[in-house]
């Protein structure tokens, strides 16, 4: 049995009449220590999926198990990095992390908890910003604190919900490298949600595309064969890298873009931004981006999805 197992999970929102299926027939197995990236359209339901793994919401049907035990709510075995950092603005960087440490390791003496907090702040290269409030930190720094907070819980699974989505390309690249390094050091089981195909290829062992919603489902997994450590500059010319990228994009723009239910829209049209009955947050579907993770990207690759969409 896999360490993290998702079986036939479905989730929808709304009442009986205006019900919108967000996710349908989601099946996923993640081995212990594996780094998995789920790549998909914005609004397809990626956050819904990761929230269910975190235990913040329950699936309508199907099961999620961690180490054989079904997920019924949040647990210390699963840490989470939120999409918008979600640091508490009235606490300093140190206190934000310490809050998690204090709760998770409540029996430890204070000195040990402080040491533990400092260790993880150092791991994300936070430098001298320990005593600054989130408002005084840059976006990259805030995300580092959020990563440190999740890591400091020392949970076996780390869930990351588009952790770098709000950052500029350069900061993004830096933190991607840090995540790769931290994973190499800790070998945690990581589920990364992203809309950036290259980010997934750079970091993950396996990439699983999520089709466009409603009733989004996971496509065939693509194993990333590129050896680690992965060099973002060399990767643009690497055949294995290109092959993975093509497979993922082909699914996302091909079968993954087709809506499962019959409707007036033909499979090849660009997803309508206002899908009937779908909640506002889940309705605007935009295609996953390619290129921001790869640093200097060749123009033909960056342009590829736009050509197909046009």
């Amino acid at each position, binding site marked *: 049995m896999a360490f993290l197992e998702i079986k036939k999970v479905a989730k929808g929102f709304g009442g009986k009449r205006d019900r919108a299926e967000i996710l349908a027939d989601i099946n996923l197995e993640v081995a212990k220590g594996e780094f998995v990236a789920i790549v998909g359209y914005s609004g397809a339901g990626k956050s819904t999926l990761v*929230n269910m793994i*975190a*235990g*913040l919401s329950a699936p309508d049907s199907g099961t999620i198990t961690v180490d054989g035990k079904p997920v019924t*709510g*949040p*647990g*210390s075995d*699963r*840490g*989470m990095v*939120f999409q*918008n950092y*979600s640091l*508490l603005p*009235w*606490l300093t960087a140190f206190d934000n992390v310490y*809050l*998690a440490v204090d*709760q*998770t390791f409540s029996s430890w003496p204070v000195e040990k908890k402080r040491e533990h907090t400092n260790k993880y702040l150092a791991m994300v290269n936070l430098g001298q910003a320990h005593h600054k409030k989130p408002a005084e930190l840059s976006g990259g720094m805030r995300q580092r604190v959020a990563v440190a*907070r999740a890591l400091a*819980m020392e949970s076996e699974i780390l869930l990351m919900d588009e952790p770098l989505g709000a950052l500029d390309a350069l900061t993004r690249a830096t933190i991607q490298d840090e995540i790769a390094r931290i994973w190499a050091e800790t070998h945690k089981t990581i589920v990364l949600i992203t809309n950036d195909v290259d980010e997934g290829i750079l970091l993950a062992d396996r990439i699983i595309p999520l089709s466009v919603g409603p009733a989004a489902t996971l496509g065939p997994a693509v194993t990333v064969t590129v050896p680690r450590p992965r060099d973002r500059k060399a990767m643009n010319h690497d055949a294995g890298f290109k092959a993975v990228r093509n497979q993922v994009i082909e699914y996302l723009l091909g079968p993954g873009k087709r809506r499962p239910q019959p409707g007036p829209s033909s499979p090849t049209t660009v997803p309508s931004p206002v899908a009937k009955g779908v909640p506002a947050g889940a309705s605007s579907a935009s295609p996953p981006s390619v290129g921001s993770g790869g640093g200097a990207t060749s123009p033909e690759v960056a342009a590829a999805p736009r050509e197909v969409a046009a």
Partner: protein
Amino acid sequence: MKAKARVDVAAIVLPLVGIVVIVGIWALSSATWSKNLPSPFKTWQVSKPFVVAPFEKRGELDQGIARFAWYSLWLVAKGYTLALLIGTPLGFLLGRSKLFAKGLDPIIQILRPVSPLAWLPLGLVLFEKSQPAALFTIAICAMWPTVLNTALGVRSIPQDYLNVAKVLQLSPAKTFFKVLLPATLPYMFTGYRLSLGIAWLVIVAVEMLTGSPGVGGFLWQEYNSLIYEHIILCILTIGVVGFVLDRLMSVVERRLRAA
């Protein structure tokens, strides 16, 4: 520089112009159509002993105006504290529990607009003494802004923060003190400031009706003694004290928002 200096002059001169105009209308009124209204000069003459020796106690009904204001403030402080002690937890309950909100909201909407003059007799019936009745009236009139603003603050807490509390598995106490309370604090203090304003409004009515010593009691007594100059003195005192209280609270409020 020049523009700034002009603004400063305007900030001093314009209020002075306003005061002069109002005092002018007052003087004109007392000289023409309202013979009972004391003139500004006469008001000052008669009020002088109360203002120049504000803390003096010459007799039970003959005390400096600051002393009267102090009595009122002390009573307000007690009633206001009671209002916060009841209003804040009530606000949290309303904000956190939909069931509670649905059950209590109509009652709150009906009780909120009731005048202090209507509550006081009920207080006297309930407690049979003027002091607790006064506290009851101040508390029940002043607590609504605290209740409603606290509830609004609790409802406005971003879902993200609540998710963090859940994922970090914070205990209920930690969730309250580290997440709910700090997130609600700015709203709470807006409520506290508005509540203080109402408490100060209510005190005058309460003192008049119960005859307890204070600015309101003094006002009513001087009206009955036909010393109309002191009515104006009391009105001005009530206004100044209320203004100062509001300023003090908004300083605290702004500090909390900045933090």
